[in-house]
């Protein structure tokens, strides 16, 4: 509902589509195709959001794409996104640098249900670029560690070159209170860690049945992870999935992200698995 509130605050007759200017204050080229941006709103205001919410991020003249926020609202210096160069808009975004601006709308949609996660054991399963939107929640839990139970993090990528956030991973590995496990589908000569798809990590640790689970990754990953969670006996209403769809408007109008009668952009992108398991074409 936060997106509705934002609309109301902006005035009742205002356009849903006029973006806000956000200045790039830091960038790093994370991989050959992924660029990590730290942004601040040009008008000096703070972006209020919930982990798991998305932004429409664009360059005027090129267009907008939906991107999950990759930082936690507990860190107030600005907000972060990671953009993978795949098409025309993402290429335009990734050609921008410190001092340039991007144009954003949001936060949009429903993020993670923090109240449902508080006080609980939490497992996050992130595959590939799915680490970016979940990083928002990872940081949040890390910053408010005492509010959550056991915190287990699984992160998998195709190969070591594709693993994002090397500094974060160093922190996660060393941090007291984060049980961090990572894997790659294919190792290279330097790799000494686990090799195998992300589900192989389930063998490395015991998980309690009352664990709350967050899954984000490529569509093909979901059913294999759900299969593992079923085997543990984790109820499906305690499983949260962060879905990706084609989106144009981000405000529940344009129809591109429809899954049955739901819109990924306003009803999601975070859904409980029990909410969507009966919806055809969801996963």
């Amino acid at each position, binding site marked *: 509902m936060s997106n509705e509130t934002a609309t109301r605050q902006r005035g009742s007759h205002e356009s849903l*589509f006029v973006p806000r200017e956000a200045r790039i204050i830091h960038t790093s080229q994370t991989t050959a195709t992924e660029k990590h941006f730290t942004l601040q709103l040009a008008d000096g205001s703070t972006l209020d959001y919930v982990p798991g919410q998305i932004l429409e991020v664009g360059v*005027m*003249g090129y267009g907008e794409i939906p991107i999950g926020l990759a930082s936690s609202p507990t860190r107030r210096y600005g907000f972060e996104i990671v953009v993978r160069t795949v098409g025309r808009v993402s290429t335009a975004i990734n050609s921008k640098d410190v001092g340039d601006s991007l144009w954003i709308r949001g936060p949009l949609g429903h993020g993670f249900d923090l109240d449902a996660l508080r006080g609980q054991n939490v497992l996050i399963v992130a595959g590939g670029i799915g680490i970016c939107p979940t990083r928002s929640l990872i940081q949040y839990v890390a910053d408010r560690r005492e509010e959550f139970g056991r915190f287990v993090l699984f992160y998998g990528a195709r190969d070591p070159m594709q693993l994002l956030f090397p500094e974060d991973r160093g922190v996660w590995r060393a941090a007291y209170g984060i049980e961090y496990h990572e894997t790659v589908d294919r190792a290279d000569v330097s790799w000494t860690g686990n090799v195998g798809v992300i589900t192989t990590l389930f063998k490395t640790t015991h998980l309690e049945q009352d664990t709350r689970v967050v899954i984000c990754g490529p569509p093909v990953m979901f059913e294999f992870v759900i299969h593992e969670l079923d085997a543990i006996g984790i109820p499906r209403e305690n499983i949260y999935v962060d879905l990706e*769809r084609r989106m*144009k*408007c981000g*405000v529940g109008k344009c*129809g*591109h992200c*429809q899954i049955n009668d739901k819109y990924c952009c306003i009803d999601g992108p975070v859904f409980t698995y029990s909410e969507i398991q009966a919806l055809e074409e969801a996963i």
Partner: protein
Amino acid sequence: MSAFYLEESDFSPFLEAVIHEKRVIGPVAKRKKFVYAPLETADDLRLDFDVTILPPKKIFFPPAQDIVRFEGSQVADCIGPIDTVLLGVHFYDVKGIDQTDLVFRECNADWNYLAQREATTIVASNIQAIAPRAFWDSVGTQVQAKGHDAFLTKVDAGYVLVTRTPKGDALIRYGNFREATTEQVESAVQINAEVMGKCPERLDYSSDEISAKVRDSFDHQKMWDELAEDCFSCGSCNTVCPTCYCFDVRDEWNLDQDSGTRTRYWDSCLTREFARITQPGGMSENFRERHSSRFRHRFMRKTTYLNDKLGGPACIGCGRCSSACTANIASPVRVITAIMEWSS
């Protein structure tokens, strides 16, 4: 609600007076068909139209609508409603407008649509000619048209105008209207009642029966493959549909290469790209790759997905898709009847 009567000879002066002050859009002839277009004179109006090529939603949600204007680091909205009278809308198209009103208003109010909608007075009119593929008298019959400000019925020697809102009442001052007699009102009611049951095509099932059966048929892949076999994925059915509201958004620069517009364009869920996302390495994921999946999605949307929200199906029986389909397979009557009679 008040009922007025206007003599035949007073109709053109009335309309000219409105045209003088406001933009008036109504059905006009375009070769052998009809389209909604601004009226230059009262003579342009063709209330004897059967159906228009595009539905009247285009007044509020045009096929291409600028939504943001940009110049350097300045951005601005493009909301600029024009005081408009939309005259000559058949009741089924009012139902279509009711649906787009709802979807553009709910959750996040979209003023790119709503501003023009609020600046428009809608005058519905009685059906004087029936389109060859119409079935509006047998679909969603539990849903009543409600978005019009007045309803105009051609009776023997003139017109009965029943106003329903202050916007409708405001039209009275433009013409030599007088209060309608009981006989005139009854005559209008009779004329509107007589047209029901005369559509050339017919759905023989209730909306609830259709919704349940179509929903249950989701996994009948063979059936959907057969129904969609000749589909070109051209999206013509979407383009002419009064209840379709999906759009694409594209940016364009002006010649100066600095300023430009962000524009939304009608989009079609039947086209291959609609639900495709790009992935690295030239890969992509298409959530509805098969043309039969996209065909099925359209019928799910029209007959069942939105019914709870809309109070009935997202189909008003205008028959535009049936006429527009290049392969002649999009007819809701054909498809729904086949699904209802399907035994696997």
